[in-house]
């Protein structure tokens, strides 16, 4: 069930995460504000790297560790979708 307050880009990003990392979860069950790393989906730095590739290929947004918002951007699907919206080139 996709809850009505999930934005289309957030659905797209959840799908991208599941596909890029081959997670065995239904993208619509990922809460947009749930943590991606550690407790939440339990992602690690290998996933961060894989995910950054998928993001650069799909949206043309190159992630950088020197970006002061990098931790916040990776905190949830909602935050990641916002960052993509802001930086996307395609």
């Amino acid at each position, binding site marked *: 069930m996709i809850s009505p307050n999930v934005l289309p880009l957030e659905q797209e990003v959840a799908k991208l995460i599941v596909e890029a990392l*081959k*997670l*065995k*979860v239904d993208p619509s069950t990922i809460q947009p504000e749930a943590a991606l790393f*550690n407790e939440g989906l*339990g992602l*690690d*730095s*290998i996933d*961060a*790297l*894989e995910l*950054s*590739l998928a993001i*650069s*290929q799909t949206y043309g947004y*190159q*992630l*950088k*560790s*020197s970006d002061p918002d990098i931790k916040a951007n990776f905190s949830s699907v909602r935050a990641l979708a916002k960052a993509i919206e802001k930086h996307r080139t395609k």
Partner: protein
Amino acid sequence: MLDAPLINLYHSDDILAWDSKGPRTVREFVSDVSRLADALPDCPALLNLLSNRYEFLVGFGAAMLKHQVTLLPQSRAPETLCLVAKDYEDSYCLTNPGESIEGLDCVMLPLQTGTAERRGKIPRIPLNQVVAIAFTSGSTGKPMPNHKTWGALVSVAHATASRFGVKAGNPNGVVATVPHQHMFGLEASVILPIQHGLVMHAGRPLFPEDVRTALEEMPGKSIVVTTPLHLRACVSADVKLPSLEIILSATSPLTRDLARQAEQRFLAPVQEIFGFAEAGSVASRRTIETDDWRPLDGIVLAGQGAEWTIQADYLPGPARFPDRISVQDDGTFRVLGRAEDQVNIAGHRVSLGDLNQTLLELDGVNDGAFFLPDVEDRSVTRLMAFVVAPGKTTKEIHIGLQKRIDPVFLPRPLFLVPRLPRNETGKLPREALCKLAEDCLEGGSG
């Protein structure tokens, strides 16, 4: 007594490291090491968890001066750190500002580095001094110590430099995506540069853009010390990497196709290193040219059939190969396959038996097994696990494992099953686990 300098082939105003705050000269380093050595507690061993490569080196050097051994656990999982620390009475943790590890005696890096207030000579360290202990997963679940003398680290650095034509200050520097607390990272990204007058980049770039920025910060040409995973990311991201001299890759096998793409894109040879914690780096190959590994100078292979050991003057005794190999007449060797029970996930080697033991120790788990599926179309194949734990949820088991094992080994997915397909002798045939994996994945519940 024979000894070797802590850092070599520099003048005192040369840049030793490139920190986020700028260059660190040899003069500053000598002062930083001396000041930290005075501030460290008098204990025989420490865990150096500093994430900045320059600060780690200051901690490592200061510990050597005080005859303290730096412990290098096989993972950063808090339980592993505690398990390692428990065996070394009076050990402490040198941590980043604000970081603390529950159950461990933590000392934060107390100093502002880079002040050059103290003058002094470059310290010399006895070659037979044990300066580090690298841990591997043992067959009983207890981390196994591998003692590293200063002589061993220096010898491997010299053999590596001689293999790739690295001379005093040429090429200029080293940028590394690998952690310096890992054996390959320690050897190639710390000891190699500081024994050959090179500039060591203090950061640990992760994303392709980070690698590019780090290379741009460095004066002159650099060696990039990395893994197939990071290399693949850089190739796929179509990033331009400036001023590259050599790419050194290790921790997991590199495909020839990726090596070729990297060489074409970054205009530098991709050299692959073969090594393991017990012996350190032992051989290399240029992946686009050959499958055969050429042992580094000073390494002698001994054995027969598929069972071989490594011998070297600087090793306390013969070290057994973790893989089955065949040795050719010209002295090179080829890897036939990994020894039973060992898996390697993104450069972290572990015994499946140990992981299973950890799983079985969790509250409410009656039976369970980790499983490495056959190659997927992903760069890093992850482990799966099947668990018999009536009344428990996958989440509860996941949380239990998270505290005890390195995140790279966390199973994804983890399946709760009513029973494992054990045969009459209680063993789990691989075919039966493959079948179970297929059934579970088709069922779609993870």
